[in-house]
Each structure stands twice: as C-alpha cells, then as structure tokens.
C-alpha cells in the first residue's frame, strides 16, 4: 500500500466528515486504524508523487524512523480521541486534520511541503487548544506559532536561493558539497527557531504555560504527547540530516538546550500547580530529546520520545480529569487524590518514576544508555548538568507523589472511567516491560538509519 494514503485518506475524510458531523469521530477511528495497518504494509523508500522524479516534484520518504513516528502519532490520536469521545465528541474533523498534518510532517521529503504541513497541523493545534476556553492563551499561541513558521519559511527560502532545490535529500547532497558552513548559519538558525517554537524548546516556548497550564483531558495529552512526539521526530530528522551543527552554532545550540533542561526543571520545582509541574517537565524533556539528536544519539532520543509520549499522556489525563472534578490543579487541592484511586495512583506513580529514570522502568534504560554514550563522546559538562536537572526533577516529582498519595483532611473524590484505567494500565505495563526486557529495543537500534543511509542503501 502507498504511504501517500496516510496523508490523502485523513484529508479526504476531514472533508467528508463536515457533511456527517455526528459521525466524524467514528470516521477518525476508522482512518487511524487504517493508517496503523497501512504503516505496516507501506513499502520503504522514496515515494514519487505525480510522476515528477526527484528533485523536481514532491516526494515522500518512508523509512523505519518515519514508520515509528507514524505508528506513535496515529495510535496516540486514536487512544486520546477514544477516551474523550463523550466529553469532546465534536473534534473529529479537526483530529483528522491533525492526523493528515502530522503524518505529512513526518513523511515529506520536500521542505516547502513541510512548511505547508507545519501550518495545517498548527491550525489544527490552535483549534484543539480552543477547547481550553481560554481565548487569550490560544490567540498568543497562534501569533507565536505564525511567527515561528514564518521564520522557518524565511530560512528555507534562503536555502533555496543558495542551492536551487527544495528536495531534502538533494539539499543534503548539495550542502555536503558546499564546505562553507558559515553561509548556512543564518538559514539554519531561522529554521531551528521556527521548529523550536512548535517543539516547545526554551526560550521559544512562551505559549506553553498558557496552553498546557489550562489544558483539559483532550488538549493536554494532544499537545504534550502527540504534537510533542511528532515535532521531536521532525526536529531529529532536521538536526541529524540537514543542520549537522558545527563550530560556534553547535556551542550556542548546546548551551540553549542544556539551559532549557536545567531551567525548566527549576521552574517545575518552584511551581505549586500540578499541571505546571507536568508542562515544565515536558519542556525539559523536549530540550533533552533535541540535545540527544544534536549529539547524534538517535536511537535513544527516539525511545525517549516514545516513553515520554506514553508517560505524559497518562499523567496529563489523570491530572486534568482530577482538575475537572475538583475545580483546581493546585497540588494542595489534589492532596490524597490516590487514596481513593489505588489503580490510577499506581499507574501515575509508574509513569512518573519512568520519567524520572528509576531502575526497572524504561526511562532508566534510556537514561543510562544515553548518559553512557554522552560519556563516550566526552560530554562531561552536559552529563553534569543533566544529572543536576535529574536530581531537581526527582525532588519535585517525589514531592508531588507524596502529596497525591497521602491525604490531609477530607478525601477528594474523582471518578475515573474503566476505559481510562484499562488504557493507562496497558501503557504502565509497557513502561515496565521494556524496562526489564530490552531485546526489542536493541533489535530496532540496528534498523534506524539517517536519510542518506536510506537513500544510499535503497
């Protein structure tokens, strides 16, 4: 089956769903299930569209890396939509746009086409965040997002004027022939800032606090898990294949990312609101993922994206449901939340401990492996800062867990639907399983290549 259908079918379904609004969410379920099946059947390689051979026409690049991203994005959209089918039933059309936009972002091999998908997914994200009922924060997100994508477009147009191509593979070849990295600093910086806005990298992420700080069971996991993981994957694609930071730019990017990790964890530590703790932790994880890609540690960055997406889906949904029922997201107001919800408490604890990187959980395996690789690369200062941030992260998460487990005064009552518990339990089980059984992770390690390896090996 062709990978083009992964974009075309959701777009077509989005138009059809306008005619059948009541059934739009069911159309979304059908499309995401079709997409998941299609990912397994899709042939790997460069897919030519419209008969124009590269570098002239638009082409898609299907490899193991993009397949992992597609599976994660489509599966998470399906799960989040299914869990919110009663509370947010009218978002089917927008979610179909999300699927088309994010699948396109992950698949496309054309830089301008990438910008178009960035805007499609961006507009869908603004509409999703409108469900927070906080129009000011959504408006700010729209303006910052529009500036980010304009900077990205400016950067790619400068690249086009330099190399005369928009095809990513072709551009990578042209850049390899051009030995002067100084000329590329400006377009790469502009594109990195543009992607950094959507990927929540500090200091380009001023929208995050307003959006995730007022999120609900739908918008929270959509932005913190689905969008974060898709943007993590595309950022990884750009950093490892196109940008290949060098010299002063590499130093500046490393400093920004390390500062992003440490400052975000400090902000989470200082926060007294549970949603803010989670959102600052997400920002720190986004910087960590980008840092791993910059250092060429691709496979562990991919695992970190997956583990983080699963953990944050569970954590945001549990906290946002509690906030909805209790009316506040202050840690103090949610004290003793798990005293009445043992199963949910255990699942939340597993997800949190995995993010912290405790042994027997997948987060530990990932942290141990990427720290070892950083040590091999001689990045001692980076390791030191990551360890400091991990200590801060450990303190605020343990404090949060203690408050949520031990009640003070009246017990608060939050009812989690059985479907919530079932899905969360499966995710927690996956985090536990891959923490102790790493054979599948090692197997996958050998199949993730860079774009040029994919092109050269056919």
């Amino acid at each position, binding site marked *: 089956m062709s990978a083009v259908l992964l974009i075309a079918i959701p777009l077509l379904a989005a138009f059809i769903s306008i005619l059948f609004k009541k059934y739009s969410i069911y159309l979304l379920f059908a499309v995401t299930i079709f997409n998941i099946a299609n990912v397994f059947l899709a042939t790997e390689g460069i897919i030519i569209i419209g008969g124009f051979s590269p570098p002239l026409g638009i082409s898609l690049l299907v490899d193991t890396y993009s397949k992992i991203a597609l599976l994660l994005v489509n599966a998470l959209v399906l799960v989040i939509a299914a869990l919110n089918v009663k509370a947010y039933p009218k978002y089917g059309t927008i979610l179909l746009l999300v699927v088309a936009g994010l699948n396109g972002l992950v698949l496309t091999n054309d830089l301008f086409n990438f*910008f178009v998908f960035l805007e499609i997914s961006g507009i869908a994200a603004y509409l999703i965040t*409108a469900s927070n009922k906080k*129009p*000011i924060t959504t*408006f700010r997100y729209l303006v910052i997002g*529009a*500036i980010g994508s*304009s900077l990205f477009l400016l950067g790619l*147009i400068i690249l*086009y004027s330099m190399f005369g191509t928009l095809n990513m593979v072709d551009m990578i070849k042209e850049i390899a022939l051009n030995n002067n990295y100084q000329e590329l600093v400006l377009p790469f910086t502009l594109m990195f800032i543009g992607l950094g806005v959507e990927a929540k990298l500090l200091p380009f992420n001023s929208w995050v606090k307003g959006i995730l700080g007022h999120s609900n069971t739908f918008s929270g996991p959509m932005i913190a898990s689905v969008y974060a993981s898709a943007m993590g994957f595309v950022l990884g694609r750009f950093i490892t294949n196109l940008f290949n930071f060098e010299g002063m730019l590499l130093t500046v990017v490393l400093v920004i990312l390390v500062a992003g990790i440490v400052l975000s964890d400090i902000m989470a530590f200082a926060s007294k609101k549970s949603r803010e703790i989670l959102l600052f932790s997400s920002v720190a994880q986004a910087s960590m993922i980008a840092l791993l890609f910059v250092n060429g540690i691709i496979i562990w960055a991919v695992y970190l994206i997956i583990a983080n997406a699963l953990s944050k889906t569970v954590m945001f949904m549990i906290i946002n449901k509690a906030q909805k029922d209790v009316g506040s997201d202050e840690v103090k107001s949610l004290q003793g939340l798990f005293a009445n919800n043992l199963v949910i408490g255990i699942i939340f604890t597993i997800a949190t401990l995995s993010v912290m990187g405790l042994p027997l959980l997948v987060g530990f395996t990932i942290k141990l492996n990427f720290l070892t690789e950083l040590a091999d690369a001689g990045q001692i200062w980076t390791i030191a800062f990551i360890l400091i941030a991990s200590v801060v992260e450990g303190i605020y998460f343990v404090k949060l867990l203690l408050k949520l487990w031990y009640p003070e005064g009246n017990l608060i009552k939050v009812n989690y639907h059985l479907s919530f518990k079932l899905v969360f339990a499966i995710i927690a089980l996956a985090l536990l399983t891959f923490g102790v059984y790493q054979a599948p992770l090692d197997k996958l390690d050998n199949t993730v290549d860079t774009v040029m390896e994919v092109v050269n090996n056919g």
Partner: protein
Amino acid sequence: MIQYAAILLFVLGLYGIFISTNTIKMLVSLNILEIGLNIFIISIGFNYQGIAPILSSVSDTGLIYVDPLPQALVLTAIVIGVGTTALGLAFAKSIYQKYQSFDLNDMEESL
C-alpha cells in the same frame, strides 16, 4: 534592493507584534510580516531581463525566464496566511465577546 524593503517590512511586522497589546493590531502586524516574507520569496526568483515562464511554440533560445517556483510558493503562503488571519480574527472576536475589549492589557486580571 527589493530584498532590503522586504526584510524591513518583516522586521517592522515583528516589532509591531511585540509592542502591540491590541489583538487586531497584532494581526495587522502579523500580516505586514507575512507580506514582507512573500515579497522576499518573490524577489528570489525575480530577474530584470526575465520574461514570464510560459512555454510557447516560439523558439526559446537565448530567453531568460523568471523562476516560477517562488511564485507558486508565494501563492500557497498567501492562502495559508489568510487562513491563519481568519482564525486569529475569530479568536479576537471570542476574546472581545468574553472581555468586551481587544486590548490584552485590559484583561490581564481576568486571566
């Protein structure tokens, strides 16, 4: 030369977004930024001696065409810009309905 004017418009739009607190003025500034960007894109493919890139039966030996690709890109960028502006105006309207003001400073307390 035209590229300097385009960059000036881009920076002017960026400045407008950062100093405005009025949602409508912010959207106008965003549009100025986008116009600057679109002119910059067009200027990349422009050539003073160039003619319109249309294939004809007349021999094209020695003719210089302007690059048609930036023109196609700008068309798409304009459409996307219109979509974003329309959505931004919808949010501005919903802010007005909620707070009876377009000025973000007036509603900081309501946040």
